[in-house]
């Protein structure tokens, strides 16, 4: 039996991992995209378990309202206005200094996603929006890298594991991302931490199976509701031959031919984020949802929404003008938070 760090003894005693699995884990690289609530749980789990190298990609900064559920951050990070990736890396180095934790503060887009996941043995989803997930799906399937999808809102969550070429991919299951405004988001519907821990925990265990080469990764779509307490796994088939990503190899998000388009408007009027193709957005319904989290005025032509972090005008074809910024990445973040998609 090879020598095993005292730190991992209990994990190595678990037969499916064992010393060989631990050795493989210590030599592996995981890339985590998004380090909010889910990402914190995932990063903590992987670093404690002894993944060799963890790349954490996130563009946001730590805010006070993150602390309720994002377990890697504390009040000091808020005061220092640290990027989440950097704050996470600092904390994780105290947890396990033998893991190479690499923070990357950036927005993930079609132009950089392939570089970000290069060399990964698994990619983990800590994002809060479907556009990035479809991009990760395209990039991982194209590169043949397994990835684990996870999403949470309110008290419910979902997860599935994508093994390119072997299992259904995200697009096989959900052919198109949900249209903007069609699903609740954490910033509007709220989020409680137990569901984050559950889905984050599932993502970690899926990653451990993939990285140690043991066990059978989840071949279904897991749905969890933690308030009424229900767990459900819908079994999924293999890759779908007519899937634009894993069947036809078109990778529309990776080729930047799908998803929202963000353009800086002339002058200081802000950034326009528009879904491709346009959608029909139910402005009264959106107004109803957004009233809980900010000031809303609305008529048949537009909806204006403002709170302490954003000021936007939303139109019936799904476009939004995010005011007070010239940064397309920030505008897309706010769009994903309040309108969704």
């Amino acid at each position, binding site marked *: 039996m090879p020598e095993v760090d005292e730190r991992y003894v209990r994990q190595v005693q678990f037969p499916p991992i064992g010393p060989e699995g631990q050795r493989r884990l210590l030599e592996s690289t995981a890339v985590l995209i998004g380090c909010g609530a889910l990402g914190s749980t995932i990063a903590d789990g992987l670093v404690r378990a002894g993944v060799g190298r963890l790349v954490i990609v996130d563009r946001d900064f730590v805010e006070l309202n993150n602390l309720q559920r994002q377990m890697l951050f504390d009040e000091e990070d808020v005061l220092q206005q640290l990027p989440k990736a950097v704050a996470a890396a600092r904390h994780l180095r105290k947890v396990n200094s033998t893991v190479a934790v690499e923070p990357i503060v950036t927005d993930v887009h079609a132009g950089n996603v392939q570089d970000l996941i290069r060399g990964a043995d698994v990619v983990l989803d800590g994002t809060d929006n479907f556009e990035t997930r479809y991009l990760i799906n395209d990039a991982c399937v194209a590169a043949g890298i397994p990835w684990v999808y996870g999403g949470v809102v309110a008290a419910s969550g979902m997860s599935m594991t994508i093994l390119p070429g072997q299992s259904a991919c995200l697009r096989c299951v959900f052919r198109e991302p949900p249209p903007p405004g069609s699903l609740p988001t954490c910033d509007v519907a709220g989020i409680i931490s137990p569901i984050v821990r559950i889905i984050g925990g599932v993502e970690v265990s899926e990653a451990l199976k993939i990285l140690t080469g043991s066990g059978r990764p989840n071949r279904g779509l897991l749905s969890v509701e933690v308030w009424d307490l229900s767990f459900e796994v819908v079994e999924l088939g293999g890759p779908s031959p007519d899937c634009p990503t894993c069947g036809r190899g078109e990778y529309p998000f990776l080729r930047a031919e799908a998803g929202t388009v963000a353009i800086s408007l*002339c*002058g200081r*009027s802000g950034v*326009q984020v528009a879904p491709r193709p*346009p959608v029909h957005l139910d402005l009264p319904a959106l107004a109803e949802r957004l009233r809980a989290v900010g000031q809303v005025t609305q008529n048949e032509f*537009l909806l204006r929404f403002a709170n302490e972090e954003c000021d936007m*005008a939303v*139109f*019936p074809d799904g476009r939004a*003008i995010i005011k007070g910024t010239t940064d397309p990445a920030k505008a897309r973040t706010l769009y994903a938070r309040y309108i969704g998609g």
Partner: protein
Amino acid sequence: MIYLDNAATSWPKAPGVAEAMSRFLLEEAGNPGRSGHRLARTAAERVESARRALARLLGVSPPERIVFTLNATDGLNLALKGLLRPGDHVITSSVEHNSVTRPLRALAEQGVQVTKVPCFGDGTVDVDALARAFRSNTRLVVLTHASNVAGTLQPVAEVARLAHAAGALFLVDGAQTVGAVPFRVADLGADLLAFSGHKGLLGPTGTGALYVGPGVDLRPTREGGTGTSSELDVQPSDLPHRLESGTPNTVGIAGLGAALEYLEHRGLEAIRAHEVALVRALREGLREVPGLRLYGPEDPARCAGAVSFTLPGLEPSEVAAILDASFDVAVRPGLHCAPDAHRTLGTFPLGTVRLSVGPFNTLDEVRQVVGYVAQIARSWG
């Protein structure tokens, strides 16, 4: 769709443009002036016939004084950087597009002195202030023929006389007027005139030209192959070769040629009369919308095809998004790449909503748009 963004680029293009470009690529796409074979000769003929048509349109002789460029910005850069040297003084106005303002700013950092003359509230340059701005080293006056924001036509002939009396040259930015307003270069008194092929001329993007008058010696900003004097390693001194290096945008120029044929056939006088009527209908209709603020000269005869307005309580970008999302009307909000012009109009930094007409818009369309704007104003009033 109702397209009212012709000041950005005209749409639709003139009948025949798409066909000419398609035919060129399929049947004629040689490299002009580089060899004697049929395709090369045909391509050269397309370029030279477009040059001759531009010369006819603008009253320029010989046609070689028309130099093809990528767009108006390219022509303005060539004129400004080919002419001005450190220590030179240049006079411009406070309603210019960034295609003038930014090259001048870059030149200022190299020691060119720049004076920006103020304009009145409707965008008209203050000619008296301009007359006072001349210095002994004033080399150039550069002025837009019409504001791309408010449509304001400038008193260019008057400015030309002042410039020439002071021994300076006069460069006109014709982006908003060439093809839309009938004139000859001599009417303007311009020594240099830069314009694009894709706006009033109804041709494809990637085309434009600079007229270079007699007695103007521009240093090339690019040297290279011209297909002429190839044995020499110095740039040829004759126009247009001196200023046209590298393979030109032949397919675009072929399309521009077809557009010029259309313009000659329809006539610029008729187009101008049509656009003045459209601007009049827009201004008269918009004036009735409660709370709406209209910019630029009252008299449509003093405007090119652009009309700018703002509505109280709604940002220009919101009005434009509503017009697009709910009414399928294409307009342009914001600063229109002309922040100085908006400072002059008092609309900086949010800008205005700009409606800009073209020869294919109808009175019915502009009346519909006035109705939509009124509806938007009511909904938010």
